């Protein structure tokens, strides 16, 4: 029961505190305007320079918005504590860090999910991508799974950031590298084999393939579901381990509250 309270109530309270800039005035530009502009920009670039139909780029970038939100939210949940000088207090608390930080991911996951669904709705409205009524449930589950696996990756990067001081450097690289590796803007034939291998170990690649299948009226391959799930589990374990290791390391080096 206490664990659930830490997870949900703690997560909600931390969300209010850490994402304090997310006021009524800024929520619309942050969760709607920016992702839509990103989607429009890369869709325009893709359709003008590439050979795939408009829906290919629009869907890829709509789902990437979820990844971006999830990765940064997870990173902010660690970085903002550090900036506010409260990270040492949080880590010294009797609650398990993995519960504390996992709880913080729930509200941004929900907002990211809503943002992504809204954009997929736009894709549906403006392109020829369509989906049967029965596929809605699967699509929501898929987006939630992608969000969760990206959050696990974000938490992993945030944990590494405990050691590197500059918490936002790695997430920025990963978020933009995903544009290159995960089949968002490049089809499989346009992506070199080495880049495809890297993409296979990143969240989003398999989930996005399943999303594209659903929108094409096909049933997503079970292997894609399983691969995305496996990636979620793998990054969650890595994040948990790194959080322990680097938190201890940061205490030894007295670098817990240092930020670049």
């Amino acid at each position: 029961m206490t664990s659930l309270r830490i997870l949900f109530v703690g997560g909600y309270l931390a969300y209010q505190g850490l994402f304090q800039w997310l006021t009524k005035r800024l929520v619309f530009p942050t969760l709607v305007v920016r992702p839509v502009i990103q989607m429009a920009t890369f869709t325009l670039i893709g359709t003008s320079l590439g050979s795939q139909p408009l829906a290919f780029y629009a869907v890829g970038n709509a789902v990437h918005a979820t990844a971006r939100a999830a990765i940064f939210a997870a990173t902010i949940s660690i970085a903002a504590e550090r900036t506010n000088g409260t990270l040492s207090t949080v880590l010294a608390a009797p609650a398990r860090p993995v519960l504390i930080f996992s709880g913080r991911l729930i509200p941004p996951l929900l907002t990211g999910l809503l943002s992504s669904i809204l954009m997929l709705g736009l894709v549906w409205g403006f392109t020829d991508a369509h989906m049967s009524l029965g596929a809605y449930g699967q699509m929501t589950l898929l987006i939630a799974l992608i969000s969760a696996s990206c959050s696990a990756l974000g938490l992993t990067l945030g944990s590494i950031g405990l050691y590197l001081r500059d918490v936002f450097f790695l997430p920025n690289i990963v978020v933009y590298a995903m544009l290159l590796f995960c089949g968002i803007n490049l089809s499989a034939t346009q992506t070199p084999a080495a880049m495809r291998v890297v993409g296979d170990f990143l969240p989003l690649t398999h989930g996005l393939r399943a999303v594209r299948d659903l929108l094409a009226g096909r049933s997503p391959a079970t292997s894609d579901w399983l691969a995305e799930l496996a990636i979620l589990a793998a990054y969650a374990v890595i994040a948990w381990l790194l959080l322990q290791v680097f938190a201890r390391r940061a205490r030894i080096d007295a670098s817990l509250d240092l930020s670049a």
Partner: protein
Amino acid sequence: MSHLRFLWTAWLFHLRQMATVKIYIFDSVLLPLILATIAVRLIGAGEDSRATTSVILGAALMGMWSSTLSGTGGALGRMRTDGILEPIIAGPMPLPIALAANALASSTLGIYSVVATLIWARFGLGLELEIDSPFVLAIATLLTIVATAALGLLLSVSLVMYPRAQSVSNIFEYPIWLLTGAVLPLAALPGWVSGASLVIAPAWGMKAITAAVDGDGRTAAAALGACLLISACYWVLSAFLLRYVENLARERATLPLS
């Protein structure tokens, strides 16, 4: 004279500092490499080497703008968090000059963008690059840096006025990518976008860069003239607006809010 000396010293100081911050290195080096690779992969093989070179340099311009956006927005945020925005405003040096040094330093990192993308394109992607007028390209790059800094300074007006605007300032990243014609030719975009790009100084810088690649001296000279003129307008307008919002922020006591 003291203003110019301050501008030079502060520019050098900010540039040295920014060159060691990883997030600016990402914006000015890694981001353009990622964007250039995506663009080149989308275009595919067989494209004219001059057109490919222009796309590569366009990706560099995108990185230049991203680092300027992070630099101008991030600097004001840092000044607020560290509590030094008020002393800077109270100091004898006008605020527009203090911020201009920062904007110029962040856009100067664009030199990294240009060099890194050209090296990556040649040796990483194995592309044949062709630049007909390297000297004109160098001048066009320098003027584009000034133009990008001027646009960043203009944006910082809103950041002085509205402390929380920094959180959404990165919304301006993508529209400027498109409006400058950095990766897509403006002709490929709706007519109103081309119209709007006429008042975007870095768009003229990009035109000059493309003309330098093609060896079209006359177009490059005209574009450089327009770039210089519009940038000068930005600087003057920013100076005027910054003085105005500075007074307003003092009256409303919003300066130290972060």
